[in-house]
């Protein structure tokens, strides 16, 4: 750029030079001041806004864990069902469905477990329900009991012949 102007040649007195430099850089100090104010404002805002539980276990809001853990439960779990329905448990635990949870067929029933009188479980249609597992499909394991449901029962409901809680052919008839 242009040659250095005469005004900045060092004068005999160093404080005069200093003053001149300070005078001519004043605007830069103003800019720096604006940045500094902005930075401080950012730090203040940050200290106010970062959630308090953040960072307790890691780079996240620790309270999120407790919030998620507090979500409502919809499936009671078979132990809860078995607490009351001991008669069904007796039948089921002797048959091939002993490993099938109650709510696997009956759907989510935590609401019923909490207040049995107020919430009545829906009646199930075995034609749809049983076919979900037992309708034959090439991809199912070969040793898994599967039939072509419409042919197998000629359209009759599965619980016409099978007791759903313990479904061998010869054990009783549907409820």
């Amino acid at each position: 750029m242009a040659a250095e102007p005469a005004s900045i040649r060092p004068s005999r007195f160093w404080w005069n030079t200093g003053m001149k430099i300070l005078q001519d850089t004043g605007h830069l100090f103003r800019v720096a001041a604006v940045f500094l104010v902005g930075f401080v404002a950012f730090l203040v805002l940050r200290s106010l806004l970062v959630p308090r539980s953040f960072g307790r276990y890691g780079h996240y809001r620790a309270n999120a864990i407790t919030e998620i853990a507090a979500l409502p439960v919809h499936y009671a779990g078979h132990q809860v069902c078995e607490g009351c329905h001991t008669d069904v448990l007796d039948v089921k635990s002797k048959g091939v469905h002993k490993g099938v949870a109650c709510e696997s067929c009956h759907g989510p029933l935590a609401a019923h477990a909490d207040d049995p009188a107020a919430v009545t479980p829906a009646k199930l249609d075995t034609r749809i329900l049983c076919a979900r597992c037992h309708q034959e499909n090439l991809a199912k394991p070969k040793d898994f009991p599967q039939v072509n449901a419409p042919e197998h029962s000629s359209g009759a409901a599965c619980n016409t012949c099978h007791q759903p809680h313990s479904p061998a052919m010869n054990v009783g008839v549907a409820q």
Partner: protein
Amino acid sequence: MQIPVEGFMYPNEVELQWSVLIVLYPFITGLVAGAFILASLERVFQVQAVKPTYRLALLTALAFLLVAPMPLQLHLGHPERSFEMYLTPHVSSAMAMFGFVYLWYLLAVLVLEIWLDYRHDIVVLSQTTTGWRRLIYRMLTLGSTNVSPHALHIDERAGWLITLIGIPSAFLLHGYVGFIFGSVKANPWWSSPLMPVVFLFSAMVSGIAVVMLLYMVLNWMRREPIDMRCVDTVAKYLFYTFIIDFSLEMLDLIHRIYEADESFRSLDFMVHTKLYFSHIVVQILLGTVTPIVLLGLTQVAKLTDLARKRIYVLSGCLTLIGIFAMRWNVVIGGQLFSKSFLGYTTYKMGFATREGLLTAIVLTILPFMFLWALVKLLPPWPEKAVLAEAASAQ
């Protein structure tokens, strides 16, 4: 919301996550980085020939940078929470850098450099204009009216230093976007160490092209002669940068074809079918090969000023379209195929929706409106305007 799927896709993959707005964002920051690099050619590398584009390049960078966060905000599920990136940035995430890199580049580099370069003009304008314009200029002076030769000399040195810091800052501003894609190991179309480099060079290409175009268009609008030495030099840099960019992309392509890893068949099929138009036709043929050939022609053949001007305008436009297509092919292309490599989905772009085509068009036009306002506020060609006002004020 039935999205047509061919083959098999994981059930949650069918709907695209990142829309055309996320295509637009790297395009915009690319223009910013490229325009700034062009400006730095003069400032730091002393390429005097491109001086007429210096101020225009800076204003262009600023205009686009101001629009850059908008597609991101419109895309977020919760834009009101975006400030969380400033509160608790997750340092392992490239995206978390955005807030700070953006702020740094905007304030500590671009705004500061523009202010320092224009300070003399701002002080003069603060004394010669009236009304609300005078108020704006007075605020911009930050209260200091010292425009002595020494002060201006200091400004010039400071500006040089800022530009020097600004070059890696510009690389960071756009390079991190390339890294956002390049570091996703789950996506083989994106995952590559070349990604940030390819993004950067295509950014430089687009930035240089846009400034070249704007310079020619604005001069034509102002009925001023175009400095041919300037545009010839700019076009020369565009050509060389293009060669590098094209080489990098070809390297990526050849490497993929040769290694043919598990993703190759799926990606290859995608490029030849779903991305055929945008990738082969628009990005490669129209957007890269054609401009390179045209610009190469101007480098080897003796052409008239008019012929060169026409080639520059055509190449510039094709370049911008091609680089946009490149962003499209990366972002949208990366989401069209299944991570199981067994299927493809379709991008259903809305029109007047939050992330639709209309929004994208508005966001593309908006930077030019900002640029118009900036050019009015801080004229890049002060020689006649400001000096005339100064003369009339005395």
